[in-house]
Each structure stands twice: as C-alpha cells, then as structure tokens.
C-alpha cells in the first residue's frame, strides 16, 4: 500500500512537471520533426556500406587528429610571453 501511494505521489509530481512543460516542449518537438523528415530523405536506405565507410573515416580522422594535436601542448601565446607553470606535469615535460 505504501509502495502504491509512493508511486501515486510520484505520478502526481511528474504529472505536474510534464503538464507544465509539455505545451512548451511539444511545439519544439514538432519543429524538430519537420527538419528531421527533410534530412532523413537524403540518407540512403538498404545500403550499409556508406555508413560503415563514414564510421571508419570518422575513427581514422580522430586517430590522425589526436596524434598531431593531442591537446596537451603549451599554448603558443604562453610560450611567447615566456610564462611557465610549476605543476608536476609541466616539470616533467620541461
């Protein structure tokens, strides 16, 4: 019974939240559906090769980009100003 009451209470709270937000969110959802239906037309059906190729290209590009720009190099403007930090990581690199 307590369990049922809890679920009923939960349903009331969620009902209030959804009831308040639904009129705002649903029209936005309808707008989303409009553009999605246009975009979906250009996606090929019954041909997996295109999707596999795109997936492989994405992974290969990510590997390549990460090798060249791993994101742990010192920013150029800091180098120019000669700024240094004394963190352990930096000390190791320096």
């Amino acid at each position, binding site marked *: 019974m307590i369990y049922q009451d809890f679920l*009923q209470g939960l349903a009331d709270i969620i009902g209030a939240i*959804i009831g308040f937000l639904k009129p705002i*969110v649903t029209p936005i959802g309808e707008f989303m559906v409009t553009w999605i239906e246009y975009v979906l037309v250009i996606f090929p059906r019954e041909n997996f090769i295109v999707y596999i190729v795109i997936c492989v290209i994405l992974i290969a590009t990510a590997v390549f980009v990460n090798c060249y720009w791993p994101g742990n190099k010192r920013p150029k403007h800091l180098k120019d100003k000669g700024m240094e930090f004394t963190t352990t990581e930096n000390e190791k690199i320096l």
Partner: protein
Amino acid sequence: MRTARVFRWIMRIFILLLTASLSVVTILGGLSAVNILSDPNNIQVPAQGYSITSNVIGPNDTWYVNVPIGINNVGYFDLNNLELDFSLEMEFNSTGDDSIHNTTIYNDVQNFGNLQRGSSGVFEFNATSFTVPSFHFLEPYEFRANITVSAYYSLDLILFEIHIIDLDIS
C-alpha cells in the same frame, strides 16, 4: 568554475529533470498497463453483452443497438478522451438465390470524455440512425461489428486503440 559553465549546469539539470520525468512516465505507464491487463474484468468491450432491437427486419423499422463498455482504471494516470467507433455490417440475401450481399448499415464515433484513475465506469454506446437498404431481406442475415475503443493515457503521451474486427453479433 567559469560563469558560462554555471549556466550550462543549470540547463543540464533542467534537461535531466525532463528526461527523468519522461522515463518515470514511461515506467508508470507500463506498470499501469500491467495492473489493468492483469485482470480481464478491467476492460470489457462490450460489457454485459450487447443488444439489438428490431421487431421486423426491414427498411422502415426502428433499429436500436446498445454496446456497453466497462473500464476499471486501476492505473496511475487518468484515461482521457475515451472514444468508441462502432461500425455495423450486414450480410443478407435479398434475392432468394445463394448470393450474399454486404453493406455497412451503421458507422459512428461517440466520445465519452475522461475516466479518472482509480475509478470505473460503464459507457453505453447507443446507435439508432441506421442506413438500411430499401428492400426486404430474406433469411439468413448476419450482423458483423467492427469496434474501436481509443483513449489517451500517461498524461496524453500514449494513445491506445483496441480494434475488434468482424465480431459476429447476429
């Protein structure tokens, strides 16, 4: 933390709240379905049998069909916009040979409004305006009903339709 990040976190919490709410609605909707469907007496279409009243089968007679639907809403949400679509087909022989004709003599929708959670109700569908062909029928004749009961559930997020096809009510 940068101010830009604080604003982002507020937005994320808002989205999380919405997503969690939708998940809870889905779960409670599923639990409601289990509650309702676990007892066959909770939905009775039609309930207590139907009645067709007609003295003599013919085009000028007064016809009357009554279809009661019994629903016991033991779920967590209200049942909204309950509608019953009733169509009645008649198979008959009007020529005396073996040919059987088929015609729709009634098709209409009635709205019964809402049924609050925890309550039960019997909704009566009454059909009176029939389109009967203008000739006399010979035996045998049969009536077949197509009944569709539809309603919104889970805060109007889910629409369910119960289709009963070719129900022999002769």
